[in-house]
């Protein structure tokens, strides 16, 4: 038998959704975190409330990798309907934990894996009085079984329960009884396994937090000054707006004893976009959150905001395609949709977080970009970042003044008048493509203007004149070029002499980090560039120029980011070899490594 790995383990829990497993999985994950072990979790849940299959993977990684692990070491098989397939999802030599008091046991026919059965149903029936929650408590039993098998001390479990249910001692007690029953049963049976052991790392996760990207982004938006928030429920973005609903009253001090924010659940995404365009026009820091289908509905207002030059922030939590089926799975497949959203010639600023702190910080900064460039700004996230729990350094606030851009007050205009300057809403006064702006309520006589979509001249007068229209379009392009110099630069990790580069963005960062280590171990050294914004900055082109081979990893079928690069620089873009992962699951390092090796091999010159 092999010696067990220390703190290297991937557990997959297969249950039905709505069965209470979210709570058990959370306790298990947090217990491992509390032991100081680097760990991450991936929730693969259905678009349903009760009764459909759901899988939750918890990974402990001594090396500190946080992406989904390729292989499953332990399968907790608590869903009869998927058991026939689940049994083959665990690796050879892996372990299957199952409830031997159900009919499932008869179907366990695969060789090469270890089976550990324990009577979860029976144990719970003995311990918990018949009630609607009894079935849910069943899931607590596997927490105890896993704790015994892999070495999680019950005192850690107890501490997590106290953190989670602090004010409800009865809940702590009832959960603890069930967990302990699982633990004690496995102990009595003297079950052993040789896959892995979890060993506490003193101060291992000290100072680290666990959060989801949607929460981090919500907090970032609050710190960034969002004051009008209009949204429509859509997975996987709803929890961002809901986190704002939770935190705003707790964080924003009232003024005149009243609220300093308006949060409105709109009737649809058409309305939520219209509302934030109206609010941005009137001078508030306005935002919405949605996902791909919402962007489709918002398109018309996005174009209006682009042409009328109205600051507005759109948080887009990407998911699978239209309608039903994949809304609860992750993708990076709305990059083109966002970048060119709406009709007419448009190009939009996009900020692309890749971890919890960048979700927080780019959310905060998005309002500065929107105000500075007077345009819609997209914060492009995805379900993996937004809804999964990630360990992270604490959220860090960069304290800097709000940048309201070229917004003129009544007093500013008074000084302009004295200086003989005229306010011209859509005129390129400074040569950077960014005009000056006033907002309604400005009492200066020069301040008011009439806002329209495409038909206006540099003075905001109605115009269908061909020169006026071209002037506006060209200036908007110039503004976009100015933004190119301001948006967050990529993060580059490179060594001299390395000829292969990998580019990625967003939630692909973590699997790519792990993949690079694996590639290195197999003899392929790589440099790395993480794109953090659109428009692309010069560093991206430099990186392309500096490397012989470039792999661009993204989570969509059509190589959407590669297309943007190729469009801007066809020659350098031609070097890109796309690594495309689009099965709806969080990307694994193994998927990246496999595609890169495949591509590298097929690129080898064939010898006779």
């Amino acid at each position: 038998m092999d010696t067990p790995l220390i703190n290297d383990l991937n557990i997959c829990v297969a249950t039905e959704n709505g069965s209470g497993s979210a709570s058990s999985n959370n306790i298990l994950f947090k217990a491992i975190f509390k032991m100081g072990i680097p760990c991450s979790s991936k929730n693969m849940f259905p678009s349903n409330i009760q009764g459909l299959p759901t899988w939750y993977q918890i990974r402990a990684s001594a090396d500190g990798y946080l992406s989904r692990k390729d292989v499953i070491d332990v399968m907790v098989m608590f869903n009869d309907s998927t058991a026939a397939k689940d049994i083959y999802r665990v690796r050879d030599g892996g372990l299957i934990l199952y409830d031997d008091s159900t009919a499932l046991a008869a179907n366990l026919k695969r060789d090469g894996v270890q089976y550990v059965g324990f009577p979860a149903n029976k144990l719970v029936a003995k311990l918990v009085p018949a009630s609607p929650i009894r079935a849910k408590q069943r899931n607590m039993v596997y927490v105890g079984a896993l704790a015994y098998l892999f070495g999680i001390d019950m005192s850690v479990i107890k501490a997590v329960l106290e953190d989670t249910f602090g004010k409800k001692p009865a809940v702590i007690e009832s959960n603890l009884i069930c967990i302990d029953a699982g633990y004690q049963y496995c102990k009595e049976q003297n079950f052993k396994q040789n896959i892995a052991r979890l060993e506490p790392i003193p101060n291992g996760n000290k100072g680290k937090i666990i959060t989801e990207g949607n929460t981090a982004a919500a907090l970032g938006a609050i710190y960034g000054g969002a004051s009008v928030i209009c949204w429509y429920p859509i997975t996987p973005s709803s929890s961002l707006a809901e986190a704002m609903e939770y935190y705003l009253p707790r964080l924003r001090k009232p003024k005149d004893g009243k609220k300093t924010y308006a949060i409105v659940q709109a009737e649809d995404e058409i309305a939520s976009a219209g509302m934030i365009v109206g609010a941005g026009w009137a001078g508030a820091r306005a935002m919405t959150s949605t996902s791909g289908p919402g962007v489709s509905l918002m398109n018309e207002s996005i174009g209006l905001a682009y042409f009328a030059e109205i600051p507005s922030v759109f948080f887009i939590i990407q998911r699978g395609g239209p309608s039903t089926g994949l809304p609860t799975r992750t993708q990076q497949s709305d990059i083109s949709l966002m970048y060119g959203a709406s009709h007419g010639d448009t190009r939009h600023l996009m900020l692309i977080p890749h971890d919890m702190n960048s979700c927080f910080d780019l959310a905060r900064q998005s309002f500065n970009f929107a105000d500075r460039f007077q345009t819609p700004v997209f914060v492009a996230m995805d379900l993996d970042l937004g809804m999964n729990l990630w360990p992270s350094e604490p959220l860090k606030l960069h304290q800097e003044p709000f940048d309201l851009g070229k917004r003129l007050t009544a007093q500013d205009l008074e000084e302009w008048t004295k200086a003989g300057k005229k306010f011209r809403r859509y005129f390129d006064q400074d040569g950077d493509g960014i005009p000056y702006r006033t907002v309604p309520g400005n009492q200066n006589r020069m301040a008011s203007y009439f806002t329209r979509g495409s038909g206006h001249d540099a003075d905001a007068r109605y115009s269908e004149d061909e020169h006026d229209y071209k002037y506006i379009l060209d200036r908007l392009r110039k503004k976009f070029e100015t933004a190119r110099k301001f948006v967050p630069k990529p993060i580059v990790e490179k060594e001299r002499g390395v000829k292969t580069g990998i580019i990625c963005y967003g939630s692909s960062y973590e699997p790519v980090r792990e993949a690079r280590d694996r590639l290195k171990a197999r003899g392929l050294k790589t440099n790395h560039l993480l794109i953090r914004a659109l428009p692309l900055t010069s560093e991206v082109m430099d990186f392309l120029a500096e490397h012989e081979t470039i792999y661009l990893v993204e989570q969509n079928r059509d190589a959407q980011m590669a297309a943007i690069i190729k469009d801007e620089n066809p020659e350098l873009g031609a070097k890109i070899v796309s690594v495309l992962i689009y099965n709806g699951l969080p990307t694994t390092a193994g998927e990246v490594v496999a595609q890169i090796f495949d591509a590298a091999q097929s690129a080898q010159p064939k010898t006779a």
Partner: protein
Amino acid sequence: MADAKVNRLNLTEKDYDGAPSTMCRGCGHDAISASVQRAYFENSIDPRKVVKLSGIGCSSKTPAYFLSQSFGFNAVHGRMSAVATGANLANHTLLPIGVSGDGDTSAIGLGNFCHMMRRNINITYIIENNGVYGLTKGQFSATADVGSVMKGGKVNDIPAIDLAELAITLGATYVARSFSGDRKQLTPLVQGALSHKGSAILDVISPCVTFNNHEGSTKSLKYVKGHLDPIHDLDFVPPYENIEADYEEGTDHQVEMHDGSRIILHKLGKDYDPTNRAQAIQAIHGSIAEGKFLTGLIYYNPNRKEFAEELNLCDMALAELTQDDLQPPLEALERINADMMK
């Protein structure tokens, strides 16, 4: 030339002018713009506190033709309700007026319009209703009556949406109908709407002289004039004027507005209490059954809070708040971080 009349802000009616209109000659919309301009002047409202919003269509162009000192926003088709909602949340100290058409409101924008009224957004919302799409040259709108004939002879056989009834049902708190050709009635109704806090909906029949003014149309000038069904004559009395002279006990009904102004309703036929919701809807139905346009102040509800008040927004406009107001202290984030360590 004699000195022009000034209002309490020392402004003349000319100070409420807009750009020259580009509507067709004789278009009812221009008469409505004139009533709107008059109402602002008479109510002594500072144009710099007004925001004008619209969607798309002939009617939606008209906010450019009055109050050029106000900010204006000609948004996209059907979305004025949503845009106005956002603007109102960003700065509830401003006075929004929305101008829309029957296509913009009752077809493409119907959903957003309904929800704006459900929220009771503080706005004066005027629908310049002519039963036809003007800017796209003459298609039926959703307010075209059954049996009305299009210019080319096509007959409409789908029932019309009655915007006044819809407004009452969905929570609007000031609902009136009028006719562009009746400034005597329209101006005080606009004045009342401007004094009201909440969604004030004015469905103004405004015949399209180019595409819907022919024989067989139920929204032609001639047809509308012959089928008006006014509930009452009315006068608007600003808060600073003595009203007693105009008011006759027994035959007149008086409506008190949020800002202290009053609308005096002089009875024409039956007793009519505009605060009675069921009676209002019944009156609309009765009028439709007779093939007439019920006009006047149809419904009024002074008791419902407007949305910004319902949300308990601070007195200062959200758009004017500073970083001090909006950015929580660093310590608060540190506490959240500590919670997330558990």
